[in-house]
């Protein structure tokens, strides 16, 4: 019974993740692409739930949806109507990209199913035990990557502030009452 439930959940989550991802790539409207990201990211959070990585369900929703997607939407708003949905949205690489992606996918699928995945599949502990293990590993064995992440975030923060603060105002923008103002 539970195995069936798992399969049903996996198939529906696959649909929830893959179809929006295809829509993100294929839609011509930028804002729609941004909104299609949402079900895709929620689907990945669902896969984390299925994998019993409970902490990452929360992190996925908190960071990817709550922060990164919001930032992407702000960037869309800041670069207003630069690209008309009616215009061509892709470059001349379409065929080659499709061919190379298809070949890569076939190769990786071939390697995946040739490899004997004999079940080492462990049973992860409950949410608390897993998070304790993650926190312990983070400060003991993986202490250097942990601090490196801090340095990376610091560099990103400072660089982004420098770039954002040194931006010139837009040349001319249409105000909300239809007048052209100097920004």
């Amino acid at each position, binding site marked *: 019974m539970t195995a069936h*439930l798992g399969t049903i*959940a996996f198939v529906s989550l696959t649909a929830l993740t893959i179809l929006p991802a295809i829509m993100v790539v294929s839609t011509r409207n930028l804002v729609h692409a941004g909104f299609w990201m949402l079900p895709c990211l929620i689907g990945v959070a669902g896969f984390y*739930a299925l994998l*019993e990585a409970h*902490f990452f369900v929360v*992190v996925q929703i*908190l*960071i990817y949806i*709550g*922060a*990164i997607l*919001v*930032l992407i939407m*702000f*960037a869309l*708003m*800041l670069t*207003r*109507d630069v690209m008309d949905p009616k215009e061509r949205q892709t470059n001349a690489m379409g065929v080659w990209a499709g061919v190379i992606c298809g070949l890569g996918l076939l190769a990786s699928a071939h390697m995946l199913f040739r490899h004997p995945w004999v079940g080492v599949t462990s049973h992860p502990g409950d949410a*608390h035990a897993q*998070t*304790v*293990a*993650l*926190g*312990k590993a*983070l*400060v*003991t064995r993986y*202490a250097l990557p*942990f*601090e490196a*992440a*801090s*340095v990376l*975030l*610091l560099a*990103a*923060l*400072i660089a*982004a*502030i*420098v770039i*954002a*603060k040194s*931006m010139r105002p*837009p040349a001319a*923008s*249409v105000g*909300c*009452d*239809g007048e052209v103002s100097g920004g």
Partner: protein
Amino acid sequence: MHAYLTAAMFTLMGFAFVASTLLLSRLLRPSAPNPDKLETYECGPLPVGDAWQQFNMHYYLFALLFVVFDVEAAFLYPWAVAYKQVGLYAVVEMILFVGLLGFGWAYAWRRKALEWD
């Protein structure tokens, strides 16, 4: 795992409720399409221009700071669950982690990125 099942059931029920309500109102209401009904509502006056406005840069700066400190919070959480079992070493490391990002925060403050306008 059953907690997720409950949440999934609630989500499905929510979608089903909205869909059935919309369907029911579609069946019951009279239909009188009119292009004026699709206009943006602006308290009476006719709307001018597009709704896709150029946003203030400051929204973006705040969102940017939020992303960085959101990730910091995500790192704090497993540490907070585990630090009792690791002890002083974990505390020192987290002070280093938060301290480094504290530099970034102080820099943002000095460059007046935290101020509106």
